[in-house]
């Protein structure tokens, strides 16, 4: 569903992402790995429209979406989470989530001022959507807590829920298990599988190899902005270039 | 013994505080003199109290202060020393039935028909032709305008330009400057000097005006200055370090240089009370205004009926004993503006020389 052709991003003289061409199938989990600074986050920023491409083309479901802004990409169905999650700490978890579905609503200032039917319906829809998403990530019981008071792993889940509330078809997760302990990581991995089963296409950046190797259908390995390998976990793990650049001998053949 | 309260709403903090305080000083000096021998009005004896509120030069605060002065302090008259405040006060002073003593030279303060307003300073346009005469005859016909850019200076230059041209002169440069906002006048002054004027028209607050004159000299200007009346020549001389820089300047005679006996007596009194400081015309005129207001109350036989007091103001000024009228206010014109016979001063050979504006009054 997602096709990238020689995607490139340069910052001044530095090519953070350099001529990457890759395709991701619908309903799969795809991992992007590589050393720090390899360009993984930048790669996500390009797909999600946060930064304009320096070169290359992005096609989603046959539609050329090169050059669209982040909000336009979200409208098309690209959801994402960030390496560090920002929530509104002084509001309840549910309040944080309601805005997630805003993108699928149409009420405007006039609706607000006149309190129209449409506004009320849509607000109810957003609330419902937020609850559904929260339910999906298994946090229905904390909807009334203040976002500032919840644990790290719960924050990650709320971030997933926020992305899910936008009704995405493609979900980009940047280090979803970063800062989460091994036990909870397993829970998050299950959650990601559940998303896949519900029909989502998922791309994730992760340093936790155990998680990746068990989860991913396909792995893309970046180093210095270049694609150095691509394939199934088994293929990647056996790839000497990857071992050399990233995995080291420790993770090979685990 | 009852108390007559006269209100003041003007700047007491911020950039214009100095000005506001001189005004207030004059008012308080008058009040103190009156209280030395309490006045009798309608059979009652009164003392005078000045109630001062700060409005930071902000018209909407003047509006609030006016209400407060009238309703909390029952002031019969309120003095406001800035045009914005005057205009804001005029929105309600008639309804509040309070006499508005407007210390602003803008003719608009009285021209719009407010029935309870008295304009304390004289109409500045009376200065224009004697100033022009003095400067043009000796120095030449080309004038460069380098006055300040606030409302009063603008009104001045708007009246001055046609008068200068009518007298056969030419305006070679017209370059108003922000006297109170600019960090430096050098470029602005050099722009005017470049047009080779014989006379520079300058003026705003005294101190920056003095800087403009000084910098003009530094840049090689040798001609005369016409100084609009807001700037006081004596205060300017303090900044320029004497009158020599101001050679050829024409302006209004400062109080300290006014040699009429009433003025001299007032200046002496004031110096004694204020550590040797010279009074400015703000001090003198507002001092006079308070005395005149009390005198008008006496004439009207009421301390509260603003309409009746206003009706007696002209008489009050006319009949004011000389010692209370150091600025020589002769009365009010039809619209309520003060008529003053001022002295035109010019700097010649490093000294101030005066000449009465209307010499027919010289016999005073």
């Amino acid at each position, binding site marked *: 569903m997602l096709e990238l052709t020689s995607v490139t991003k340069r910052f001044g003289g530095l090519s953070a992402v350099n001529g990457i061409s890759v395709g991701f199938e619908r309903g799969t989990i795809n991992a992007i790995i590589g050393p720090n600074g390899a360009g993984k986050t930048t790669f996500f920023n390009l797909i999600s429209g946060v930064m304009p491409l320096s070169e290359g083309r992005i096609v989603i479901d046959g539609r050329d979406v090169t050059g669209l802004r982040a909000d336009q990409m979200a409208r098309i169905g690209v959801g994402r989470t960030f390496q560090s999650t920002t929530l509104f700490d002084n509001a309840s978890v549910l309040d944080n989530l309601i805005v997630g579905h805003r993108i699928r609503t149409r009420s405007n200032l006039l609706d607000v001022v006149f309190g129209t039917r449409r506004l009320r319906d849509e607000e109810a829809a957003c609330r419902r959507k937020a609850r559904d998403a929260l339910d999906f990530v298994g946090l229905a019981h904390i909807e009334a807590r203040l976002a500032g008071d919840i644990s790290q792993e719960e924050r990650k889940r709320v971030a997933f829920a926020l992305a899910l509330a936008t009704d995405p078809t493609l979900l980009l997760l940047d280090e979803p298990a970063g800062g989460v302990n091994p036990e909870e990581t397993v829970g998050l991995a299950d959650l990601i599988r559940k998303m896949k089963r519900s029909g989502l296409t998922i791309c994730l950046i992760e340093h936790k190899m155990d998680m990746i190797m068990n989860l991913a259908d396909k792995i893309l390995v970046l180093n210095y902005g270049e694609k150095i390998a691509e394939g199934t976990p088994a293929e990647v793990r056996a790839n000497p270039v990857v071992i050399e650049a990233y995995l080291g001998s420790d993770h090979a053949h685990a | 013994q009852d108390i007559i309260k006269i209100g003041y709403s003007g700047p007491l903090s911020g950039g214009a505080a*100095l000005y506001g305080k001189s005004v207030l000083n004059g008012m308080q000096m008058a009040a103190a003199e009156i209280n030395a021998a309490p006045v009798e009005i309608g059979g009652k004896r009164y003392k005078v109290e000045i109630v001062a509120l700060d409005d930071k030069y902000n018209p909407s605060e003047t509006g609030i202060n006016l209400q407060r002065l009238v309703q909390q302090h029952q002031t019969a008259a309120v003095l406001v020393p800035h045009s914005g405040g005057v205009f804001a006060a005029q929105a309600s002073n008639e309804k509040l039935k309070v006499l508005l003593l407007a210390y602003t030279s803008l003719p608009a303060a009285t021209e719009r028909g407010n029935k309870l307003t008295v304009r304390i300073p004289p109409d500045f346009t009376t200065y224009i032709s004697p100033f022009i005469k003095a400067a043009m005859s000796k120095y030449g016909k080309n004038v460069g305008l380098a006055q300040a850019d606030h409302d009063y200076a603008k009104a001045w230059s708007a009246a001055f330009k046609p008068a200068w041209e009518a007298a056969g002169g030419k305006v070679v440069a017209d*370059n*108003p400057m922000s006297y109170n906002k*600019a*960090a*430096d006048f050098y*470029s602005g002054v050099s722009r005017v000097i470049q047009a080779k004027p014989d006379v520079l028209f300058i003026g705003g607050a005294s101190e920056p005006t003095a800087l403009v004159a000084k910098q003009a000299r*530094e840049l090689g200007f040798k001609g005369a200055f016409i100084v609009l009346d807001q700037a006081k020549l004596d205060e300017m001389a303090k900044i320029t370090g004497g009158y020599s820089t101001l050679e050829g300047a024409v302006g209004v005679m400062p109080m300290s240089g006014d040699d009429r006996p009433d003025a001299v007596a007032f200046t002496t009194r004031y110096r004694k009370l204020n550590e040797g400081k010279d009074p400015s015309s703000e001090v003198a005129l507002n001092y006079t205004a308070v005395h005149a207001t009390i005198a008008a109350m006496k004439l009207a036989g009421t301390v509260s009926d603003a309409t009746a007091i206003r009706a007696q103001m002209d008489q009050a000024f006319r009949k004011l004993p000389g010692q209370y009228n150091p600025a020589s206010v002769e009365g009010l014109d039809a619209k309520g503006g003060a008529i003053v016979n001022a002295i035109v001063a010019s700097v010649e050979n490093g000294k101030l020389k005066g000449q009465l504006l209307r010499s027919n009054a010289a016999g005073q």
Partner: protein
Amino acid sequence: MELFLQQVLNGLTLGGVYCLVALGLTLVYGILHVPNFAHGAFYMAGAYCAFFLIERLGFNYWLAMAGAAVAVALLSVLAERLVFHPLRKAPYLHHMIASIGILLFLESGVQALWGADFHRMATPYSQILSFGDVTLPAQRLLIIVAAFVLVLLLQLFLKKTITGATIVAMAQNRDGAALVGIDANRVAMMTFAIAGVLAAMAAVLYAPINLVYSSMGHLVITKAFVIIVLGGMGSVPGAIAGGLIIGFAESFGAFYISTDYKDIIAFVLLVAILSLRPEGLFRKGAY
């Protein structure tokens, strides 16, 4: 040509003063990451200190300048300790309002103590130098030279001394600085002190050709803000270049375009530049 040169000199004079004020502001910005609105009040306080040292205590000009520098440095450090330090984790809106509180306090304090009068500070150098048709009062020459020397000294201090390097280090990475043993409090106080000294010296240099009054800082501080945004917040070369740009824009604008509109020129310049280069002229990316 002479007139052109005259404007160049005027621009240098103004630019020199602006540079000194803006440099203090930009150094403090490096530490606080917040624009300090009270800086203009420090400038004013410097002029007042020197004025009263000269008038009341009979100091000579240079001694008075030194005295003012010390006094304002103390004032500035005090503000850091009592106000900005407790606020260091607050959002920048809070700093702004607090610094306005300091500004109100200093201005009205000066007024309550010494009255609202304009004062005039005498210069020991009242000669007027002429080069052909170009006039240059000695005090203006002094401003240009002194500003140049001070800027140079500051650059040398920041670049060549280890103490100076700590200021830069703090601005570049606060945690990193703490980890090599730099005492953040000390550096913050030192930076405020230097900013105070620069502001006081700028004021004392400039006062003899202008006036001393309680709101004299407003003008300069507004310009200094424009300058550091123009030059890139926290950038020392940016502050210098920005100061000169605004100085020249004002002198040439006042001369060739309109004195009445010269203030608009500076602001329009900023608006135009920021529209094209949001991060200022000298700031590369974000760090």
